[in-house]
Each structure stands twice: as C-alpha cells, then as structure tokens.
C-alpha cells in the first residue's frame, strides 16, 4: 500500500487560498487506508481550511467528494467539478497526477506520498519498498535494504551499526535484521555473498509500463 501523510496547513493554504471555490477530493483506497484521504480526513480538512482561511481573511468555499481510486480515469469520470476553480487532492502522487491530467483546472496535493509500506497496527506503517525495479527480497528474506537501510547499501551492514541500531538512531539496522532472519531460516551461509551493483537505470527509464505495446509484454 502507498502510505501518505497530510501536508502542513500553511503549505496547503498557500496553494488554495487564492481560489474562491475549491473541491477536496478524497481517495477511498490507499490514502483512506493510511488514514489521510478518506471521508473523515476530507471533512476534517475542510473544517481546518475554512477556519484557517477565515482567520487569514481569505474567502474560500470548500466542498467534498470521494473517489474509489484517484489513479483510475474511469473513477475520475464520475467527478463533477463544474463550478469549482481548483481541486485539492487527498490522494497519493499518482492520484494527484491522474486528476490533474484529466482536468482543465489546477489540481493541488494535500498529501505527501511517503512510501510503499505495510501496516504495523492501527495508524502505524513501515516502509517496505522503494519501487526500484530490480527486486532483491529473495536474497534478503523479505527485508529491503534499498528501503530500510538509510544508505540503501546492498552489502551491509556498514560500520555505523551499533547494538543492532542504525547510526541515525531512528531505526534498526536493516542488515542486522537480514542476518537474523537468514539465520532463523537456516540460510546463514547466504550471508556475505556479494550482491552485484543494482542497475539504477531501470527505475529511471521505467516511466511507463504498457503491456499492450509490442515488445513490452515480456
């Protein structure tokens, strides 16, 4: 799931404060599940923006809509934004982009897209994947060094690890975790096998994936 987080109100207000009628569009998939883009967050943001706008002397009217998934043109078709002069998207980056591409009015992001992650309980997520385009999770027992290691190194750990914690101090060392999991699976012999450098050009070049195009269906 794509994990998102609401931007600071000032930043949002700078974008939408110049408009008079703004439609807030929530997304009932990843953004809702990461508790930032569902109906409740749309309602809260409308209240917050209205309050903030009136304190700054702006005269902006806000209303709400929810799409099942903002990243799908077919869902967007159902959105009736007539009479609004801007759209504030509570979707991930893909949602904002899709909405913007399908619209003749400015579309602004209310959220920052953080990572592809997994739920750790209520209102808590762990980054798991950076969409690099060349997955090594098979070698690392499901722990992504590109995502979870602060340096993103493929042959760790580095010298900064102390008592299993990254030198940044905010996370466990991904490579210590990889070691522990390899050991628990009886694969400790795989540890230390040097991984070749990743081809970073894959994610850089992969701006589109279209199976219907000839040559892209492999």
């Amino acid at each position, binding site marked *: 799931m794509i994990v998102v987080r609401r931007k600071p109100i000032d930043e949002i207000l700078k974008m939408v404060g110049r408009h008079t009628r703004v439609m807030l569009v929530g997304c*009932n998939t990843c953004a809702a599940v990461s*508790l*930032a883009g569902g109906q*409740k967050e749309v309602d*809260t943001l409308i*209240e917050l923006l209205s*309050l903030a706008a009136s304190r700054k002397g702006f005269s902006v009217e806000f209303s709400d809509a*929810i799409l099942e998934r903002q990243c799908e043109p077919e869902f967007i078709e159902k959105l009736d934004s007539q009479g609004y002069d801007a759209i504030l998207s509570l979707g991930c980056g893909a949602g904002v982009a899709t909405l913007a591409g399908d619209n003749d009015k400015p579309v602004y992001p209310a959220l920052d897209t953080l990572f592809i992650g997994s739920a750790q309980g*209520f209102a808590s997520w762990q980054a798991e994947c950076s969409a690099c385009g060349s997955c090594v999770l098979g070698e690392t027992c499901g722990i992504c060094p590109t995502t979870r290691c602060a340096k993103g190194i493929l042959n760790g750990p580095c010298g900064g690890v102390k008592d299993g914690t990254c030198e940044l101090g905010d996370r466990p060392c991904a490579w210590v975790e990889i070691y522990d999991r390899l050991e628990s699976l009886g694969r400790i012999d795989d540890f230390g096998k040097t991984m070749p450098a990743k081809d970073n050009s894959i994610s850089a070049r992969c701006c589109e994936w279209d199976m219907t195009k000839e040559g892209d269906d492999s």
Partner: protein
Amino acid sequence: MSNIPPHKASEADKDRVFAPCRARCPVHIDVPGYLSAVAEGRFTDALEIVMQRNPLPSVCGRVCLRPCEEGCRRCNLDEPVAIAALKRAAADHGAYPLPRPMGTRPERVAIIGSGPTGLTAAHDLAQLGMKVTLFEEKPKLGGMLRYGIPNYRLPDDALDRDIGHIVSLGVETITGVRVGRDLNLDELAQTFDAVLIAAGLQGSRSVPIDGAHLPQVMTALDFLERSASGEKLDLGERVVVVGGGNVAMDVARTAIRQHAQSVDVICLESRDEMPASEHEIEDATLEGANVHCSWGPHAVIGDENVCALDTVRCTSIFDSEKRFAPEFDESELRRFEADTIILAIGQSADVGDLGINLTHRGSPIVDPVTLRTSHEGIYAAGDVVTGPTRIIDAIAHGHRAAAAIFGALVDDWSLLRELDLENTVLGEIPPHMSEMLETRRRIQMETVPFYEAIKNWGEIEEGYTEYEAAREAQRCLGCTTGARLAQEKCASCLSCMRVCPHGAPGVHVGGYMYFDMEACHACGTCASACPGSAISIEGCSPDEMVLRVQRALASPTIDQTIAFVCGHTRNALETLDPNARIVTVSCLLRVDESTVLQAFRSGAGRVAFSECDTGTCRFPHALKLVAQRERSIVSALTQIGMGDSFRIVGPASDEEAPS
C-alpha cells in the same frame, strides 16, 4: 472455502435485531437508545425516544412490572440496569415533546375508558390527526392508574403529566359519563366513525360466604377509589384484606395510611405461590401488614357490624392440570378479628349494559387481529378483552387498537402489520467479552423510610437525580446500538479490527467487513478510527454532534467555551470554567476533529476536553486513542495559530471522584 465465517445478519436485518430488554417490552421501546441518551444527560432526547412507543413514561417509570429488566444482558454479570427508574428520570428531568399531530384528518373516534389502553389509543389516533373524544365515567382521567394505584406509588401529578401531553394533542375529554347508562353505544356508533371500548375491569369478584353482604365488607376497587379520591374512611382498628396479589398489597398499605391499627392479609396461596411481586410483599410487611398464607375465607362473623373473618386451612390451590381448584382442610380453623374486611380477589369486566356480544366471562368478543367486536365500527381492547394484565400490556393493546382502527378507517394496514413484524433477539454476552466487563452494582434510589412513608400519601421512591440517572444509565451495555457499517463507504482498512478490544469487527474473504453484534458494546472506538466515516454508532453521528454543539452554544451564558465532558466523571464540571457550555459524551472518543473545528466555526472561542477519571472510565481501551486525538487536535490548531484555544482538563482529584 471452509474458512469463511458464518454470515452475520445483514445491516438491513439488524434493525429488527432487538436487545433482550427491547424484545421483552410488549411495546418494544428502544431501551438502549434512551439509556444512551440518559447516560449523556440528554433527558429530553431520552423522553422523546421513550414516547415514540410509550405515551405514559411517567407512569411506567414508576409502576411498570419491568419485563425489560428480566432480559437485561447484565443479569448474568451483576444485576440488571434500572431501566424503569431511568424512564422515570427521563420524564422527571426531560421536557415533554410539543404536540405535533401529523396533519388533520376528518375521521372521528370515540374511546370509552381513559386507562392505559384508552389513553394510548387516544394518543396514537390523535397523533395520526384523527379527532378523538375520550369518555370517562369517573370525574378525572386515568382509570385504574388514578383510582386503582395508590398515590404513594403513582402520584397524581406524575400521571397528570402524561395525560396532559396526550390531551394536548387535541383529544376531547368528557368525564363523568358512563356509556351504556348515560349514553347509548349505538348513538355513539352513529356519531363517530369508530368506537373503542377500553373500559378495563370495573367489576369486583366476591366470595359466596356467610356475612359477605355486611356493610363493612368492601371490595378492593371501591376502597382504593374512595381513598384515591381523598375520602377519609372509618375502617375501625382491625382490617383484614383477602387476596395475595399486588392489589391486596396496595389495599393493605392504603389501609395503614387510613389509620387502621392492624392489617392482616390472608390468602389461599402459600408464600411461594403468592402472585404479588416479592418487593411489594416486603414493603407491605415492612409497613406493618401481617401476611397469613394458606388460609381461605369461610364466613364473615357479625350481626350488623363485622367482628371477625373465619378462615380454614387451604391445602392446595391448583389441581393436577394447574387449574384453580382450591382444597381445604375444614378441621383447621382460624379466626381473624376484623372491623373491616376488604376483598382483593380479582376483577371482572362490567360492560353488560353496552349491548354487544360477550364471552361467558363478560368480555366483549373481538377478532384477535383487528379487535373488532360483533358490531361494525365498534372495537374493544385492553383488560376488558384480555382479562387482567400488566399496564405495559394494556398500552400495547392500545397501540394495536389504534392501528386497527386507523387501518379500517383509512384502508392503510401498515401500522397493524408493523406491530406483527418478527424480531430477532440478541444473544447473551459472549464469554470472552463478559470477562472483560467490569461489574458495577445498580445505583440505589433514595426512598422515604417506611416509618415516615406510612404517615401520608407522599411518593415513597424519590427518583434519581440527574447525576445518579446518568451514572446508572452508563451501566447499560449498549446492546444493538453499536457499530453499523455502510458497506459502500468501507475501504476495508481494518482499522476497526485493530482498535476493537472485543473482537466485534471481522473481515470476510474478499475484504468485506462485518460486525458481531453480540460482542459489540457500543464504545464507538471503531467509528472514531474509521477513515471512511463508514461506521456509525446510534446517537452520536457527526450530524447529531454538530446539532448538540449548536444547541449548547445557543444556551444563554457569557462564556464562549464549549466543554466536551466525559460523563463518567462527576466533578469534571467543577474544574472547568463555571460558564462553560457543556456537551456530555459517553466517551471523548466520540468527539472527532471536525466536531471540535466546527464548534469554533459555530462561534465557540475555546474548546475544552474534560477527561474522565481512569478509575471510573467505562472504556479504558479508548484512553490511548483519546490522547492521540487530543495531540492531533492540538497539532492542527497550532498550525493555524489557535493552539491556545484548546484545553485539556485532567481527571478530578480522588477526593471528589465518586466511589
């Protein structure tokens, strides 16, 4: 596919899943609904909920025999919630709704008798817009409620509040007129589109024994009516009451207040067989009545004045087929000295002068569904048809009569059909949940001590204060008022599953969420965590919360603080600004960010959260989430320069906390 959990009731079906209290109530009052309103101090809302199904809340709050409480799911945990007393609290502290009949209709209906059945039918038909005329033989309305139940249990002013609301719907009342004697039923039937006979049981049963004709032998109804009318009766020193039911207990206690020096109650039944409620027997005994079981009246001794009642030992009451067939041992005699003997051995219908077909017991013969008698346009309902029942049964029959009359006159039978809709009853508390629930004893109501009570006719039970009522209502487990899911809004995020400590939410293969109503006890944690606003809890939807904030802000105080107060801590109010406008909630988790922000937009200058004492917290699992909510509100308000406008008031000191 074997891992698919069994399908629970669909959301639509859930409207007919009743909590046991509601299912056992013959009129199906939304008990959990009004208890949750009382728990939040919303007495007017609670009264409105009660009155949707029961037009006599003040009466039933005092003298209902409370079948609801026998079903309370707390019975297996500690003791049932004081449902009836909380109905009284709603009537005592709430405002009766303004009379708002649904338009006006041309049909005219006459109702004979203003007891619970007649009053209920009058209420319903007037509410539906019909022109209702209520005929009552006695000088005042109320029937047995006024003339059969002593004032110390049901004071006139309490009864008058209920009757006042019914009459305010536009019901015409004619008192002091007995149909059959002063007015002809046929004439009535020609003047009105329908006539309902709801005359109750006005005849008293007697016993065929020597001396029963003497003037000092009275019937219970006559005695109670004269006492209720304020008559001071000269009973002499010694009173013997014959009968073992609640009426006999009322008679005994009334005789004590009529200054009888000794009151002996004799009954055929053994102590265990007595039909009177246990607490009625205890109260009568406490006030000085002597109950003598297993004695049958044999002869009244006396020439012009009664001087004693001779009784014989009753050895059994019912035969092998459980029919009433008392057996006596005439060798064992006992004489009870008496100046007055009062017979409280049952009532019968007394409608022989109406000229309709009657059963051998003297009751009108009616169609069991439509309650129509042998005459077109004439209906009968209540005890006159069914024989003696509880007040709440008589009210239910009044609803049926009104629905049947409406059906026949308007050719719309939907109301009658609705009465016969089937319900499913919520099961017992699952074992895993009962282990998690805290036991809490019922809050005892203040009563006048018996030695003071017998000196006058004042009401014995003083009723709950607003605070006591709220605390008692908070014992309700909120059965069936919990999570309702709007599937189309659900993002299957699983937040509800993650925050519910009772395992009520679950997920089917395919990601479809469901809720187990038996495990849910309406804490509202899931609704507060749901990002899609897909889960609702009865009584605290976002719209309702906004309305409550706006109502609170409209009240005339100088201060602009809106304080959301957890109802589980009494003294929270005292630690706040005394002018703060209070919105009491069952849990602060029910106040979400947008409700707080809307309060500012509605004109509040400040908002405060008054937290509960962890010792009295009803939903401890919510504490962490409330703290998270508070951080989120502070963060949002700080971002727009309003951080100082939100205040968190901590729990009260131990000294002030209720024990």
